[in-house]
């Protein structure tokens, strides 16, 4: 066991991380609600704002909340199984906190203030093609911030490795590779080669040791890409092959999911046996599964690019090879669910809000795993790739598995981290069940919409999907409101309103003993629901007025600029037309010196002295390969761009 000072250090780390993560949840969760409302036509956001919010929500909820929370709780898991955070490990743990908080703040600034909206996967070279929605500064600030968050992952991994490979491992060998083998549980398989004294490593250490090495390998290439992207924002001559960049992104992008899942597994391994009152039911095969996971984790990225197989590339072969490696990752999940399920089976499991959240989290894990197998199968992925099915899948993973685990761990561990009893078990029950049930509906509807072909990342979905989107809205509100009792409960607990923590013989915190005359829980619940409803309504109304769709034809003033050039006078603002030319993507197909464009798909426009009416007609109706822009551009924009092209083509 570790001494009290060691426990205090780990307590402080876990608290700092989870408090910051919980604050990030509050913001990023609300952004998610705004997006779904907007899709349902309730407070429709301008597209630039929608996609900026989408970027902030993705990174914020995924890394800033769920990731950050389990990263913090990992320090307490390690302390609980006898691994104190010391020396360099402690420095790295603290550095991680600062890097992550700074990174998330930078991401907030670049998205919500500078309108960076290239999505959290910022698929290169999209960050450099803002189409007028964001500029090079937004790209630079975003790239730098994402880099800080990436560095936070690396420093966390180093800190974890420093801690698990230290003297607390009780490994016999001094060889680092051997010690790492001990830390990922190989001693369960080969007790003599990976010898420990006196017992093999505790199960919760294994997934942490696995992910700590994998994430270093996964993050470094992305860091290089981010630096290049940052430089390219100001020096366009620097560039990368987009297909390579896509592979690099997913080389990081898949393992980062397991930066959430593997520490979550460590927490399940620690907490489920405690509530079941008996040790984890696990033999030595689980160590084999984690060994497979350690290797497979870094060779599965291509399942995110199953539908990229351009001619003359080997991508199709890489993709095919990665279906079996992805399938291999089913093993650690399947074995973990077996172990945890049978640890609960026929035990005298104590059902508290915390343990219920953990149990429902395992259900979420199963649901996400099953939809994940669909995504991992190339022949099935073609039907669901980039549809809302994927959104349903990863919300099952992120909120109904990792999220419920974080909530459960918060209820289970807050009393031992703070010495204060949980303020209200009743609020916690409400929170856990409402989150699970409303989440099931909201995310289940995404799965259905996805199977019907609904595309993801659409500010406005094709109208065929409107019905189910609107059906989900009340449940979205319930899901959002269900979080209010969580925040209130945590806040009141931290303020010591639940009294001093007491624990039963298993180490499970007991319900708070409330002094007489205090506020009743029922009154509080009522107040919270009313206040939250009011807030949600206010946010909805504010969203509606802030972000009404600007793409509808609007504006009362018509600027008529008479210019000579081309075949005569043009009605329309040529300067505005130049901006339309750039943002509508005309230059990608057409060469026009006045716009500096060099596209070769469509006819060259220079020197052809085109009539305004002809250009207007082509833009409006299209011809041959050229699509119609009617409805996509406003009347005003069509006149402007026609004026600009007519003038430019005469030069």
């Amino acid at each position, binding site marked *: 066991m570790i001494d009290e000072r060691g426990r205090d250090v780990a307590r402080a780390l876990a608290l700092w991380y989870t408090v910051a993560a919980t604050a990030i949840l509050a913001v990023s969760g609300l952004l998610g609600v705004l997006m779904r409302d907007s899709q349902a036509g309730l407070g429709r956001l301008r597209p630039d704002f929608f996609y900026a919010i989408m970027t902030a929500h993705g990174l914020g909820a995924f890394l800033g909340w769920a990731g950050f929370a389990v990263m913090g709780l990992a320090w307490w898991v390690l302390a609980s199984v006898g691994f104190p955070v010391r020396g360099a490990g402690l420095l790295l743990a603290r550095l991680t906190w600062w890097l992550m908080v700074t990174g998330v703040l930078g991401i907030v600034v670049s998205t919500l203030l500078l309108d960076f909206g290239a999505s959290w996967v910022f698929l290169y070279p999209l960050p450099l093609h803002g189409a007028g929605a964001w500029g090079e500064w937004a790209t630079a600030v975003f790239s730098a911030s994402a880099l800080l968050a990436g560095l936070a992952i690396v420093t966390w991994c180093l800190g974890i490795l420093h801690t698990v490979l230290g003297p607390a491992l009780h490994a016999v060998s001094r060889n680092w590779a051997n010690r790492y083998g001990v830390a990922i549980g190989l001693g369960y398989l080969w007790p003599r080669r990976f010898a420990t004294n006196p017992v093999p490593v505790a199960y919760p250490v294994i997934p942490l040791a696995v992910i700590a090495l994998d994430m270093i390998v996964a993050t470094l290439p992305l860091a290089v890409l981010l630096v290049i992207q940052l430089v390219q924002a100001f020096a366009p001559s620097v560039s990368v092959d987009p297909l390579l960049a896509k592979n690099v992104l997913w080389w990081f992008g898949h393992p980062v999911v397991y930066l959430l899942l593997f520490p979550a597994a460590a927490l399940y391994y620690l907490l489920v046996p405690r509530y079941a009152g008996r040790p984890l039911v696990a033999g030595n095969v689980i160590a084999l599964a984690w060994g497979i996971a350690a290797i497979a984790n870094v060779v599965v990225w291509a399942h995110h690019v199953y539908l990229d197989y351009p001619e003359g590339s080997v991508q199709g072969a890489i993709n095919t090879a990665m279906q079996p490696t992805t399938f291999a990752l089913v093993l650690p999940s*399947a074995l973990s669910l077996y172990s945890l399920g049978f640890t609960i089976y026929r035990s005298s499991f104590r059902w508290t809000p915390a343990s219920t959240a953990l149990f429902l989290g395992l*259900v979420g894990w199963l649901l996400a795993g099953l939809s994940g*197998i669909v995504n991992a199968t190339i022949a099935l992925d073609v039907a669901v790739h980039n549809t809302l099915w994927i959104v349903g899948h990863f919300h099952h993973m992120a909120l109904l598995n990792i999220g419920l685990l974080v909530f459960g761990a918060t209820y289970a561990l807050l009393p031992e981290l703070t010495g204060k009893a949980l303020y209200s078990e009743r609020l916690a029950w409400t929170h856990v069940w409402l989150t699970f049930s409303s989440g099931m509906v909201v995310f289940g509807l995404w799965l259905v919409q996805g199977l019907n072909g609904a*595309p993801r990342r659409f500010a406005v979905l094709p109208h065929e999907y409107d019905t189910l989107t609107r059906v989900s809205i009340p449940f979205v509100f319930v899901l959002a409101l269900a979080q209010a009792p969580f925040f209130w409960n945590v806040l009141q607990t931290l303020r010591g309103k639940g009294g001093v923590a007491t624990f039963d013989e298993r180490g499970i915190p007991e319900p708070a003993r409330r002094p007489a005359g205090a506020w009743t829980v029922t009154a509080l619940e009522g107040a919270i629901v009313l206040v939250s409803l009011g807030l949600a309504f206010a946010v909805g109304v504010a969203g509606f007025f802030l972000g009404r769709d600007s793409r509808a034809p609007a504006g009362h003033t018509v600027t008529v600029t008479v210019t000579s050039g081309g075949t005569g006078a043009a009605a329309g603002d040529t300067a505005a037309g130049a901006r339309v030319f750039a943002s509508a993507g005309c230059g990608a197909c057409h060469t026009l010196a006045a716009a500096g464009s060099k596209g070769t798909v469509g006819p060259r426009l220079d020197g052809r002295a085109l009539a305004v009416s002809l250009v207007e007609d082509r833009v409006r109706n299209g011809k041959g390969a050229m699509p119609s822009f009617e409805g996509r551009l406003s009347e005003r924009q069509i006149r402007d761009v026609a004026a600009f092209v007519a003038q430019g083509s005469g030069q």
Partner: protein
Amino acid sequence: MSGTGTVIAVAYGIAVVVGATVAILVWSSTLRRRSVDRERLERRERTWFFVVLAVMTALLLGTIFFVPYGESAGKGAQVVRVTGVQFAWAVDPATVRAGRPVVFYVTSTDVNHGLGVYDASNRLLFQVQVPPDRTQKVVHTFSKPGRYRLLCLEFCGLDHDRMQAALEVTA
């Protein structure tokens, strides 16, 4: 819903029902305390490992031959060139005949796009990713005449959701 979508819906539905049943059984088993043979369960972990391995191997063998890579259209194919730009599709020609294979050569001039083709009742027929400056080939035979819709299925920026075009299929 497309044919593949229906297969997924049925398989996933069954798996969820089985999973939920197991979860309820595990929950109800805790209501009365009963003994459990730990050692047997730990030995059975190995059996479970091989069950999962067998199921995943079967799924692999059952699906890996249906990858869309390296399709060829054979003789008499029609050719359509599709170019993605922020935020439009250029489709050339925009009309094809039903019943004969169509080879789509898809490319992008700026960022990553994704080409998804939907039929008149909004079923997703096929899709393919479109990385910039590369050509992606995909073959499809339209069985029915009508107006088909092309959407962008890879997020490409501000007007991603408006990046749509039509393809006419005649008899």
